[in-house]
């Protein structure tokens, strides 16, 4: 019997050693901010931009001496947690940041369903939660964001989808038509079949139709497709004027050469592909290609402040990638939050939410960043177009005032 008891005890000790106690008490006047994102695993290409963007903003704020809230000045302390592209780790990291570290705000994550699961922890704990997933619109309703609602402290740092889709559709058609030389009447969508793809395409389809486009088909492909030729041939059979690739930059860049090979359409639109990548990889096309970036392009931008931001962003060591501009969905809103705290004069979550809803923040993406009634931002979208063999022109597109009739 003795040996059996001993055996159980040793294994338990191994477990006990792992339960390291909560970290040492933090310094007096710092505010903790958490970031949960994929810094390893399959989503690292999108995830790494979050800590990079937030880290840059926090450094800038601390370098300027921190923020004055009420009569005290605070420095910001950034806590980065890798979710390893695994929902259980994302949940554990959120529990740690909310309950152990008692952070004032959380940014992340890059994956739609991770963010929703995280929100179930941050919201009851009254922790401000900023995320750039456009699909948050599904949960952000007037009742859920009202005080006492289940998403009162949740903010979507991307425009309402009908606005982004509307301005994108308008921009794409406006930029491509002169390059193609004849009016564009028929569009076909080729979209990745996952949460974001399904959500975005429903709005973009409506936006195209409201621009007078005939859209005979939306072709969904399994998210990790590499050989797109069957889908592209199917699109070709519909004889479209424009083929619109949504939304994952990597998949779109895999599909484009195959589309050019098959000569599918006289022009293409690549959502989420940055002109910077277009030039970096020396891509070229014998037909006009439009591109749009989320939210602003780093390769070629008509937005003066974007260049300064991205120079600092890449200088801080982040690799140049298709998703580098996603960092802006987080960078601007650290400054926005800091300004809200200063305006509210207190760190109280409810006061901060009120400040966030009334403030108009001058950020990189736009000089007039503001959250609407359902905690979503409204700003213009940047669409660029590359003429065959060459120069890229970009232009900001203003969003439509209200959603097209469904």
């Amino acid at each position: 019997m003795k040996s059996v008891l001993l055996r159980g005890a040793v294994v338990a000790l191994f477990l006990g050693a792992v339960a390291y106690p909560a970290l040492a008490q933090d310094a007096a006047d710092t505010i903790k901010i958490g970031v949960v994102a994929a810094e390893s695993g399959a989503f690292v290409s999108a995830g790494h931009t979050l800590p990079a963007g937030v880290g840059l903003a926090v450094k800038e704020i601390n370098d300027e001496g921190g923020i004055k809230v009420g009569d005290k000045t605070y420095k910001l302390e950034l806590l980065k947690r890798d979710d390893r592209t695994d929902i259980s780790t994302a949940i554990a990291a959120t529990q740690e940041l909310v309950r152990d570290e008692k952070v004032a705000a959380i940014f992340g994550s890059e994956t739609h369903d991770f963010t929703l699961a995280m929100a179930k922890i941050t919201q009851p704990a009254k922790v401000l939660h900023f995320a750039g997933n456009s699909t948050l619109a599904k949960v952000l309703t007037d009742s859920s964001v009202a005080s006492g609602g289940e998403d009162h402290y949740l903010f979507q740092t991307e425009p309402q989808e009908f606005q982004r889709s509307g301005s994108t559709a308008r921009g794409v058609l406006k930029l491509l038509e002169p390059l193609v030389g004849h009016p564009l009447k028929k569009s076909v969508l080729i979209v990745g079949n996952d949460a974001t793809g399904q959500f975005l395409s429903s709005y973009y389809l409506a936006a195209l139709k409201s621009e007078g486009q005939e859209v005979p088909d939306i072709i969904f492909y399994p998210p990790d497709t590499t050989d797109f030729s069957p889908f592209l041939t199917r699109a070709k059979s519909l004889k479209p004027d424009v083929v619109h690739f949504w939304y994952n930059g990597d998949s779109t860049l895999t599909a484009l050469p195959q589309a050019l090979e098959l000569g599918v359409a006289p022009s293409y639109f690549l959502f989420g592909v940055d002109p910077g990548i277009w030039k970096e990889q020396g891509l070229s096309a014998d037909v006009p290609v439009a591109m749009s970036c989320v939210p602003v392009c780093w390769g070629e931008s008509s937005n003066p402040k974007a260049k300064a931001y991205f120079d600092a962003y890449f200088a801080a060591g982040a690799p140049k990638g298709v998703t580098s501009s996603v960092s802006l969905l987080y960078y601007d809103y650290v400054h926005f939050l800091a300004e809200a705290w200063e305006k509210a004069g207190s760190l109280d979550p409810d006061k901060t939410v009120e400040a966030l809803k009334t403030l108009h923040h001058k950020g990189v993406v736009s000089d007039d960043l503001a959250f609407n009634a359902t905690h979503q931002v409204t700003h213009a979208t940047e669409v660029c177009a590359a003429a065959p063999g060459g120069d890229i022109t970009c232009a900001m597109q203003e969003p439509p005032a209200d959603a097209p009739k469904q």
Partner: protein
Amino acid sequence: MPASHSFRSLLPVLILLVLLALVPLLSPSNRFVSLAISAGINVIALYGLSVLFGQTGILSMGHAALVGIGAYTAAILARDFNIGFWLSIPLAGIMAAIVAALIGIPSLRVSGHHFVIMTFAFGQLLAIILTNGGDYTGAASGLDVQQPVALFGLSIDVLTHYYLTVVFFVALSAIASWAIINSRYGRTLRAIRENEKLAASLGINVGRHKIGAFIVSGVFAGVSGVLLAYFLRHISPSQFSSFPSIYLALMVMIGGARLLLGPLAGGILVAFLPELLNLDPVQSRILYGVCLIAVILLLPNGLIAGIIAGWHKMFDRRAAQPSEPAVEREGK
């Protein structure tokens, strides 16, 4: 086999579970408790897999799909029929068991790797069906679980309370698994694992028992799915496709599929090993991969068998392998 003898093999697990239940007294960090809950939920599914693979010798790479069935059943029951946590446990268990039986039927004709890749295909098919299931399955964005969890009025949603609920279900799974291993049914499954032809010649209906093993493994997976749905509060198809299934197979093997402590050890190791390596995220993943390789090369029979063998050597008792059936080492 004298009953007291086989009870002895349950004792280490019970002791370990009591210790695990006392962990909240050490006021561990919330991160630890959250990871422990996720690990515990995996362990419940692993006990199902240990009956299927450890006892019956059938490896399945679609076990996470069955957990998914459990989770989605719980979410849909809560959404459409307002059925809460406790009632959805048996219902989800039954649903997962039915799907498990369906996945099991081909195992009567196809065996070995051909069957493994088939279960892999089933796992992928389920993820595709859920992704394209429209509003009913919440399509690719998945489903929310709004129902609160309470027991006799006490809210379980507090982390440590949920942790204790998970430990309770892990204990239930361990005891059920122990009961199966030491029962006539368990011996029948082991006979099928060791030599199907001989088993049939002794009157064992091999086909029916194989399907039975799938059904049992499905029940464990379904219960695990309910606990997962109510813990994450939001489930989506990508959590139950092929790689999660491959990881469940990894956990049960690295722990020791045939031993009562195997699933527990495998689940805890795979969940907490990354915690010990907190270098830069990418470097710690490299180290994590290396550690997995090291563990299985140094302890080919799995963690528990390795610990037991090391234990005997350390106390230089006779190194012959212990004879209780439940603690036998993995044979060829």
